């Protein structure tokens, strides 16, 4: 029975015949409602890129305000209309921009755009499967994400503007309709978009988990999985277990907004209104619920990048990854700890101080698996025969940023320091470096590395190098000074610092940061040009395995069809990191173990 069931599990898929005959897809089934995981991955990637551009543009706009608070730009009014009266962004617009920038980049770009793209693209290819466990659900996952995107986008065009209470959507700003212009329709649309997004990530996550567990090819045991797949597996588990908590929190928020309940509202005093009639609610409850998702979310963003970086580093150092098991164990440890530390975002909320100290302890524990990973990356590079491809550079950049941002995480994890640093630019610098830019680097590394597999063409290397060096330098130039601003007490989310005598000293620095931000943004446009040009006109891939890599995706044809392998799915005989073994440069996973092959 057992083997039968397993057999059925594979057969019932009906994909095994895919590789064998030509498809006659229409444009609609091939490019739009495709059920091919590779096409869905590209859809996620390109939608994510659109959002990244929009989110980046928003940051440029509000950096313009922060850098040049007194200047007036008439062209702004012609784009933004009433949101930039007299060529200056209004405070409402500023807050809306900041909020949407955060929401969009955290959820739409670095969650859907990163794990959506690479989980879809790499899981079936690297574990040796024809497609996802349920290609249909996979397609639904993308279309829920797309719908969420449309709803979020539409919130920017409503009369009162998008939500403007910060991406964390804390009540009462999010619970009271009159708290700010964005708390009206904008917030409703925000909630709907997030609910759709939760459905999308759930559909995707279930699929990734079931696929990795059930659909591995023969011989692909769990310890022969590339680290990318392990990372994506933990990412999916994190998403499946934590997003529902956000959904619950949002449902309660909807009731508070529209049905007169007081889950999050109490008899607080509101300027101009007086005391609210609500009783007994607790705004802290929302923060708990939000961060129960919010903290795992940080790792949902980071883990895929970590996995891809491990893979890319090993391939381009021509060395096995150092400490495969330790890497795996630390991924697991990070995934578990991710669920235990959420309240370190809430040290200043009036959290029970004893509870806070437990959260400090648990938070600092994350440093251990993180350090293990960093050391293993560095020792993977050690005495490697390194090829500095753009993908590799971005992977190294990731490690650098992860160290710089991770170290400040240890500061912030201490409640005693956090009370001083909370909600300052120090926090902004920390999470942008460690989570934002670092994951972005992971994503770039992934795109540069797997672009030949995605499109059968190469990206332009020279543009890639320019892209890397400007972005790398820019990331530090933008965010490093923010640490000093934060230590000096400069609070985040303020519209205009020029009115405080104590922050006037930072006027030049702010202008500098804004200028660099614009340059970096322009460089990303260069990457986009490179990306879209290369899809159609890039140098064609001639070698099916251009990076001389061991993993299974390179055993497929240069442009694999739906079903990935034209013939049989290869069987796996070894782990994916046999680089430089017995003087052989690389031994792909599907090569049987030779009789006299050394064990070391």
């Amino acid at each position: 029975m057992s083997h039968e069931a397993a057999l059925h599990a594979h057969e019932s898929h009906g994909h095994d015949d895919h590789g064998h005959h030509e498809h006659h897809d229409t444009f609609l089934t091939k490019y739009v409602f495709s059920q091919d995981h590779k096409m869905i991955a590209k859809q996620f990637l390109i939608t994510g890129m659109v959002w990244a551009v929009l989110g980046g543009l928003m940051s440029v706009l509000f950096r313009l305000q922060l850098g040049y608070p007194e200047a007036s730009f008439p062209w702004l009014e012609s784009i933004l209309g009433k949101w930039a009266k007299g060529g200056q962004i209004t405070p409402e617009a500023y807050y809306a921009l900041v909020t949407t920038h955060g929401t969009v980049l955290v959820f739409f770009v670095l969650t859907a755009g990163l794990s959506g793209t690479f989980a879809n693209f790499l899981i079936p290819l690297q574990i040796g499967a024809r497609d996802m466990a349920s290609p249909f659900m996979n397609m639904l996952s993308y279309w829920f994400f797309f719908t969420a995107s449309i709803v979020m986008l539409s919130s920017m065009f409503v009369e009162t503007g998008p939500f403007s209470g910060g991406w964390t959507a804390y009540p009462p700003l999010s619970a009271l309709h009159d708290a700010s212009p964005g708390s009206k329709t904008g917030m409703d649309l925000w909630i709907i978009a997030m609910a759709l997004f939760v459905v999308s990530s759930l559909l995707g996550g279930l699929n990734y988990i079931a696929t990795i567990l059930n659909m591995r090819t023969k011989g692909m045991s769990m310890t022969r999985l590339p680290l990318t797949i392990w990372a994506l597996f933990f990412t999916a588990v994190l998403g499946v277990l934590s997003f529902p908590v956000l959904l619950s929190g949002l449902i309660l928020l909807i009731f508070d907004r529209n049905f007169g309940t007081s889950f999050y509202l109490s008899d607080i005093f509101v300027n101009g209104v007086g005391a609210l009639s609500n009783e007994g609610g607790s705004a802290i409850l929302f923060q708990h619920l939000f961060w129960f998702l919010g903290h795992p979310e940080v790792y949902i963003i980071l883990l895929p990048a970590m996995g891809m970086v491990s893979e890319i580093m090993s391939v381009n150092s021509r060395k096995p990854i150092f400490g495969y098991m330790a890497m795996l164990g630390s991924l697991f440890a990070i995934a578990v700890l991710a669920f235990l530390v959420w309240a370190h975002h809430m040290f200043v909320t009036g959290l029970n101080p004893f509870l806070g100290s437990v959260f400090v302890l648990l938070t600092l524990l994350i440093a251990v698996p993180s350090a293990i990973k960093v050391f293993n990356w560095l020792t993977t590079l050690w005495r490697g025969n390194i090829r500095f491809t753009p993908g590799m550079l971005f992977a190294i950049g990731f490690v650098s940023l992860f160290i710089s941002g991770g170290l400040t995480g240890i500061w912030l994890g201490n409640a005693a320091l956090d009370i001083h640093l909370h909600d300052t630019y120090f926090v902004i610098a920390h999470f942008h470096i460690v989570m934002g830019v670092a994951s972005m680097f992971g994503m770039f590394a992934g795109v540069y590395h797997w672009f030949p597999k995605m499109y059968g063409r190469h990206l332009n290397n020279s543009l890639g190098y320019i892209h890397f060096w400007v972005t790398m330098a820019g990331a530090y130039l933008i965010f490093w000074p923010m640490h000093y601003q934060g230590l000096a007490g400069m609070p985040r989310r303020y519209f205009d610092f020029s009115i405080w005598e104590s922050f006037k000293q930072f006027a030049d620095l702010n202008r500098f940061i804004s200028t660099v931000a614009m340059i970096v943004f322009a460089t990303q446009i260069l990457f986009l040009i490179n990306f879209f040009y290369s899809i159609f006109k890039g140098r064609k891939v001639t070698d099916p395995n251009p990076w001389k890599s061991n993993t299974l995706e390179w055993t497929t044809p240069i442009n694999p069809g739906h079903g990935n392998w034209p013939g049989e799915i290869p069987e796996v005989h070894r782990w994916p990191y046999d680089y430089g073994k017995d003087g052989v440069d690389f031994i792909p996973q599907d090569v049987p173990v030779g009789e006299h092959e050394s064990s070391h």
Partner: protein
Amino acid sequence: MGLHICIPILGRLTPKKVGYFYSNILDSQYFCTEIETEMSNVTTASTKEAKWWNGGKSPFDVEYGKVMMWYFLMSDAFTFGAFLISYGTVRFSTNGWPDPNKVFKSFPFAPEGVNAPLVFVSIMTFILIVSSVTMVLAVHAGKMMDKKGVVRNMIWTIIGGIAFLSCQAWEWNHLHHEGAWWGLNPFINADGTASTTNFTNFFFTITGFHGFHVFSGVVINIIMLIMTLMDKFEQRGRYLMIEKAGLYWHFVDLVWVFVFTCFYLL
């Protein structure tokens, strides 16, 4: 075999392997080749258990849809968990709370002032337990390829689900007539002080969300019944979808165990 070492959640640790792990933690290459040789031995003298994780089949001996259903239910457990834990949190952060026995004391068709705490809800609980039992019987009949048994038990399950929903509708209606609703709480705390509206807020939200699950469960069961009657599963040679629907239905029952305890007993 070696693969069990690294995944304590998924596999087994043996002392020997723990030893390998620690002695070689800093030298992955050595460690992994060690595993490799071990593995090649395994393939020749394969023990059955070691092969579960080796690829080419499900490590759980379960078809992918069922894996997805289990993980979906876990994720749904977190949704309900978040609701119930929020309820607990708010209850713990409030000084007084209404006594459920004074709130839920009515019974259909009984005179206005009747005092019958817990009676109605215990009937609801038993309805759901019984419908869960008939669901198990349906799943079992499916495994036996007994179409008649499946149909009979599915019908009972659906009736049970509808009966539960009707009970809930009556109870909601009754409470609404007493003046309770989202944002409205006519009941006072057990100690005679004024109560916040969060008692009714949480009651209606959580039982409503559970009722929504029961409703979708009934819809799924009706679809399964129709598919059974159309011989879909006979043609496929197995009643797998009934098993998955069964998992969902039992989960709904499971959630009710918690909701029932949290709202009516504690």
